[in-house]
């Protein structure tokens, strides 16, 4: 039949019209990339695989606008994306395929969740009609990631991609930030949609912008104005809400000493006369001990983690506690407080500063200095300025601190290397420490250094790693080679899982169960990746070796053979009160 009937003609017309529309339409995979660009993303860390191939295929067309860093393992991509977010203040983005790709992210997601870092995880999923059938590389990543994400969602239709991504960014960066995971089926990546994007600005069930609790802020000011031994405990929340200036102004006006949590380090200058030191298990003596003597505690953007509080029954019982915290679920969770201010740290400080009286607490500050002196003589001096014996972790960190003028971004792994870096680097710039706090993830350091350097290429990035942690993610040396990422790696090698060994020494009658390591030649390994390196073991070589490392234009591995059985002190032993912080083993 050659003649077309009227009906057929209209049908053909509509087919033509549809074809025209479909030319303007783009695939779900491409829509995802455009959404990311709309949100200001320019860097993605990830690893391809079967189910995510349609997204990667489109990524090739956008390589001018989206820089993709191919790590050597999905866990590395997750940590790198987190570190990127921590140094840039923008959310990190991380891609992985379905099944093992997605499950390999879990440690990284949990790490970002516990440390409140916004990372957008995009995982691919098998085609939607195969979900639930145990198909090849199918895993229930929504179920698996539920307890460790701020929010997660599966997308099965391409037209749902823009609104879901918009929601994901809004949730990740507002309120208490955190990781979100979007799982996109392969068919949603390939099917087309009529693309348009608008940012999410409102979710009915989620209110990150709570009205300021002015009544509580006024009561807090009264308490502060009458305090004789007040103490500020500041955490990561200061850095997240960018309240460093307000914290400084508040502390200087009121003359109140400031103690920082591990995640809060660099939120207050280490050299300031009101700086009381690091809190927690391996923190400084002053802030730990005097927490139990303060009459008013002002906790800002911190969550009274058990590593900070020690034994809760013997924690700050004498003090009136003001808790400024954006996450309502953290208030009265571990420590019961007197005044709860469930708002953003910076906004509260801005309101609080005009309400407090100028004051000074010289006698109280002197108590901190007395503690500092005892700690310096017993622990710090022998650690950073030893005159004989093997090299100490503390002196390596101290030397790096001096040679970088405290201006480098410091990345750590977990354990003794981390505690030494936290204790002995003197931070000047806010946000210059990237470490795994809540999770304590060994293997975090190397990939995090990659993410930090990618986010802050103009900064010197120095990673302190242990021989245990390095070997958990050592394959990321491949990423450093591939993308020529000039990170400076300092391997503090003691041939032990040092922190576990320390606990075996102190609490398990020196029974060293599986903590001694037989290690490879790390310099040779680095050489295989075309990364220059040097191994040193004496005090005389230390300074020059660090200068050489810092001056090297590309990446560098400096292996320092340190004291094999060193102990990080002081220590609040597990179950002990912060008052009982120990200076000697």
């Amino acid at each position, binding site marked *: 039949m050659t003649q077309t009937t009227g009906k057929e003609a209209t049908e053909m017309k509509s087919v033509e019209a549809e074809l025209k529309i479909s030319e303007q339409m783009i695939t779900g995979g491409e829509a995802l990339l455009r959404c990311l660009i709309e949100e200001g993303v320019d860097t993605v860390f990830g690893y391809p695989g079967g189910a995510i191939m349609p997204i990667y295929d489109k990524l090739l067309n956008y390589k001018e606008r989206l820089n993709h860093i191919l790590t050597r393992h999905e866990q590395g991509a997750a940590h790198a994306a987190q570190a990127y977010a921590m140094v840039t203040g923008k959310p990190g983005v991380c891609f992985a395929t379905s099944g093992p790709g997605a499950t390999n992210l879990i440690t990284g997601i949990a790490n970002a969740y516990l440390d409140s870092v916004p990372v957008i995880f995009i995982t691919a999923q098998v085609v939607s009609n195969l979900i639930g059938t145990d198909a090849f590389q199918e895993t229930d990543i929504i179920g698996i990631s539920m307890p460790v994400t701020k929010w997660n969602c599966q997308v099965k239709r391409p037209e749902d991609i823009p609104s879901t991504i918009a929601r994901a960014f809004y949730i990740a960066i507002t309120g208490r930030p955190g990781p979100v995971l979007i799982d996109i089926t392969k068919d949603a990546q390939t099917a087309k949609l009529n693309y348009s994007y608008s940012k999410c600005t*409102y979710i009915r069930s989620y209110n990150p912008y709570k009205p300021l609790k002015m009544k509580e802020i006024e009561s807090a000011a009264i308490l502060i104005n009458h305090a004789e031994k007040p103490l500020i405990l500041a955490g990561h929340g200061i850095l997240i809400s960018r309240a460093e200036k307000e914290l400084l102004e508040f502390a200087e006006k009121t003359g109140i000493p400031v103690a920082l949590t591990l995640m809060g380090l660099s939120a207050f200058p280490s050299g300031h006369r009101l700086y009381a030191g690091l809190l927690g298990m391996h923190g400084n003596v002053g802030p730990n001990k005097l927490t139990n003597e303060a009459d008013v505690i002002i906790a800002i953007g911190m969550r009274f983690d058990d590593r900070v509080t020690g034994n809760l029954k013997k924690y700050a019982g004498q003090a009136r506690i003001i808790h400024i915290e954006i996450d309502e679920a953290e208030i009265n969770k571990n420590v019961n407080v007197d005044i709860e201010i469930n708002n953003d740290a910076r906004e509260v400080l801005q309101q609080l500063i005009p309400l407090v009286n100028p004051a000074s607490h010289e006698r109280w500050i002197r108590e901190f200095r007395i503690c500092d002196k005892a700690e310096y003589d017993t622990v710090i001096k022998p650690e950073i300025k030893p005159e004989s014996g093997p090299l100490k972790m503390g002196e390596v960190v101290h030397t790096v601190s001096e040679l970088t003028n405290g201006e480098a971004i410091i990345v750590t792994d977990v354990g003794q290397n981390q505690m030494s870096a936290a204790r002995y680097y003197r931070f000047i710039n806010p946000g210059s420490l990237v470490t795994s706090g809540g999770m304590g993830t060994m293997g975090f350091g190397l990939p995090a250094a990659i993410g930090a350097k990618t986010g802050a290429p103009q900064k010197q990035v120095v990673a302190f790693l242990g021989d245990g942690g390095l070997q958990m993610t050592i394959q990321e040396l491949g990423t450093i080679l591939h993308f020529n990422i000039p990170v400076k790696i300092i391997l503090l090698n003691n041939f032990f899982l040092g922190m576990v060994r320390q606990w075996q020494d102190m609490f398990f009658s020196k029974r060293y169960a599986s903590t001694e390591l037989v290690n490879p030649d790390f310099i040779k390994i680095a050489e295989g990746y075309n990364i220059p390196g040097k191994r040193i073991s004496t005090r005389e070589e230390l300074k020059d070796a660090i200068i050489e490392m810092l001056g090297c234009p590309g990446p560098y591995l400096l292996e320092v053979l340190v004291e094999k059985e060193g102990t990080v002190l002081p220590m609040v032993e597990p179950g002990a009160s912060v008052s009982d912080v120990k200076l000697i083993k």
Partner: protein
Amino acid sequence: MLKKEFTLSIFTEDHIGILNQITIILTRRQINIESITASESAVKGVQLITLAVKTSDEMIRKVARQIEKIIDVIKVFVHTSEEIVYQEIALFKMSTKSLLSGNTVDHLVRSHNVRFIEITPEYMVIEKTGHKSEIVRLLNELEPFGVLQYVRSGRVAITRQVKEFHAYLMEMDNAVRTAKAEYEI
């Protein structure tokens, strides 16, 4: 720690997996769910999950905040048994022969206020609505006659408070919008 019975009324968006997110929080805190019911609330598109749990005053406060933190949870209300009107429903399947002797049926209707849903020559289905204790009392009485099947529902609860959920919803909605507007200025 003194444990009490609490009823949680959790209003949520209709997001897949929300129940899973809630139970994860209870599981981590080692809290057993005594009963659970889910249905659409009086506000269209908003789900209401009613949970009965036994725990301490302090723990229920913490857990309620953690549940409310879930992105798609709109509001959590914690009630003690005095603050709510609640019911559970139970169905019993009994052999007809066993109940025909004496004035058993008459007694069941008069003293337990039961309803007979279905009667066949072989079996009867009896419905009882009330508190758990009343239902269990009836179960104990029926047991000697041979209970073929017994099932009890989760709790459904209505609050005694005067302010209704949609008022909260409107307030929250306004609060989000004004706070956000202020924040942006």
